[in-house]
């Protein structure tokens, strides 16, 4: 089982990217589970075509422990198993604790044993502001962390913080940094700025995604790019990114050609 976590500043395009990666993998025959770890609960919205689904925390709040694994998941495009951790009441509660509860509940209900996914993708909210957000990095969860960033200063700052959190956990057996994914915003000297960050954190840019209207157009249709424009330029970029990630994860036989 390959377990990957994707971090990055809020609004950087994590959910869109992760959903498209999930679609690429699922279309190639892999069983994929995507777990959105964001109180907005919209990580998998394009995979499920906008269809409503209860979050794990909604279920915990409403039913305590009286719910089944199947209540927590929805099958999305290409059979991707979608889970949304959810979050606390806005302005109240603790989002970090919410992620901890959701991930513990998934384990407790046997999500990984029952669905036996080939790939688990954790789409994690923004910056690692507290211990709860580092949960997907821990032993037993993701093996590799990928950080999405653009050339914007705030995105780079968040990416640096995430890399620092990973460095703090060195020796604990947590996930290691797989690399940076540059989601371009057409900022001046964008690639150079992100490359500088990669150098600073002793990592590399492992993939680049161009800015494209295809992404927005697919979002309008409540679909992933892979579904809406499978022959488009961005679909090709997502396929290439998936290849690179799988190579980094030492998956020798690419799922795309398997």
């Amino acid at each position, binding site marked *: 089982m390959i377990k990957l976590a994707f971090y990055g500043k809020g609004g950087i395009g994590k959910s869109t990217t992760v959903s498209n990666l999930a679609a690429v993998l699922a279309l190639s025959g892999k069983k994929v589970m995507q777990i959105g770890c964001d109180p907005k609960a919209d990580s998998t919205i394009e995979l499920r075509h906008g269809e409503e689904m209860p979050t794990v925390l909604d279920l915990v709040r409403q039913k305590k422990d009286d719910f089944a694994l199947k209540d927590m998941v929805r099958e999305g495009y290409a059979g991707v198993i979608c889970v949304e951790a959810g979050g606390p009441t806005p302005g109240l509660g603790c989002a970090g604790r919410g992620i901890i509860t959701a991930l513990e509940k998934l384990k407790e209900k046997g999500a990984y044993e029952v669905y036996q996914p080939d790939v688990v993708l954790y789409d994690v909210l923004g910056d690692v502001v507290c*211990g*709860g957000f580092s949960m997907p990095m*821990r032993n037993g969860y993701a093996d590799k962390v990928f950080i999405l960033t653009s050339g914007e200063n705030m995105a780079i700052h968040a990416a640096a913080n995430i890399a620092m959190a990973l460095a703090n956990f060195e020796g*604990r*057996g947590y996930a290691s940094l797989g690399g940076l994914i540059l989601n371009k915003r057409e900022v001046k000297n964008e690639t150079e700025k992100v490359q500088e960050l990669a150098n600073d954190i002793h990592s590399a840019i492992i993939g680049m995604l161009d800015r494209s209207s295809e992404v927005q157009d697919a979002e309008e249709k409540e679909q992933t790019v892979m579904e809406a424009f499978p022959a488009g330029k961005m679909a090709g970029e997502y396929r290439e990114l998936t290849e690179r990630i799988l190579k980094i994860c030492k998956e020798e036989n690419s799922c795309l050609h398997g």
Partner: protein
Amino acid sequence: MLTRLSHTEPDLSGAAVSMKEASFPEPFVSGLEYASPARGGWNIVHQGMLIPEAHQIFVCAEGCLRGVVLTAAEMGAQRRFSMIAVRENNVLDGDMESLIADGTADILKKLPVVPKAVLIYTSCIHHFMGCDLPLVYKTLREKFPEIDFTDCYMNPIMRKSGMTPDQIMRKQLYSLLKPGKTDRDTVDIIGNSFPMAETSDLMRFLRNGKKTVRDITLCRTYEEYQGMAEAAFCISTLPASRAGGEELEKRLGIKHLYLPFCFGRSEIRKNMEVLSNELHIPYDGDRGGEELSERALAMAKEQIGNCAIAIDYTYSPRPLGLARLLLEHGFRVVTVYADAFAGEEKEDFDWLKENAPDLILHPTAETGMRVMPRSFPEKILALGQKAAYFTGSRFFVNSVEAAGLYGFDGIVRMAEDMTEAFLHEKDTKTLIQVKGWGCSSCI
């Protein structure tokens, strides 16, 4: 001492319900709770002390450590108890993992004797913050390979979700057992705080079958405790112990048999038949035992007559089954104190609804119980500390968790205890103010 500031009459409407109006399994609304001075059963400190030669370390904010410190002190077990205080800077700095690992190492360095095992009790804050406990235990096991570590919990915020702290503690008591050879003739009795009486149906049956019986309450060394891992079977008799048995079966392959303590004749026999089939030891239905129990109840009835009787859930995990047994034998049971009932009490609940609709149920934790008068208008025999406390009775059976009782013999012993309690007054206040009755017996 609390002083009432308001002159408004307290609302006691939620603190009593008749059987005919009661719902199952929770007859009372759950909310803000009251804890009476009559604690009844054991807490997580008492239970942890059952592992011989083990040391307990509680990691928590100082305010919350007060109760467990007092328990250890009451037991005279301070030397087996240490604490690590969590402060605000640990939350801000996020060094919870190193605080536990370094604090434990420091404690172990200072102890005069290296313990065989260490029970680390983490608390709400660790759970809330998602502290990486597996990492802490991995670090400690690598650093102290000669010591066995296990995880215990003082986590009241999770009291009503998932397993209760009591269930978890009784499960973790056996988490240190290591896999080894299996002896088909060894049987564990697990999850009890008190040894099973040698006269009980269970012990006589096992002894007759030439089985070696191991029980944590009888272990005096850590090696004896580890000997429990050799058992081919483990028996739990209390609802709170069941999860521990299931875990032992899953982890060590020790076949678990849940044979609940009960009062119904057919259920007593059914349990013994299950045991008989599993162990291949004949069981003849024990008509003699049943006759003895009937005779004991009749003799108790002669003495106790029409005296009112109150039962609480700490005395027996089957308060409704006990009420039914006594009512069926002519006793005048007037009150049962319990906040909720185990699923296995449903049949007795239905019987009482039909046959004793006026029996009054009281909660023990509902806030109205704080101001409920501690008296009863006539002499009342209380079975259990909470029943004695709430009725103000000096005639009570001072026992918890059906200590050591089982089967028809358990009914005989109980009838004798009832008679003794009815005839001889006790100093209720002195007896119940000690947390966890009988706690000194375990060290």
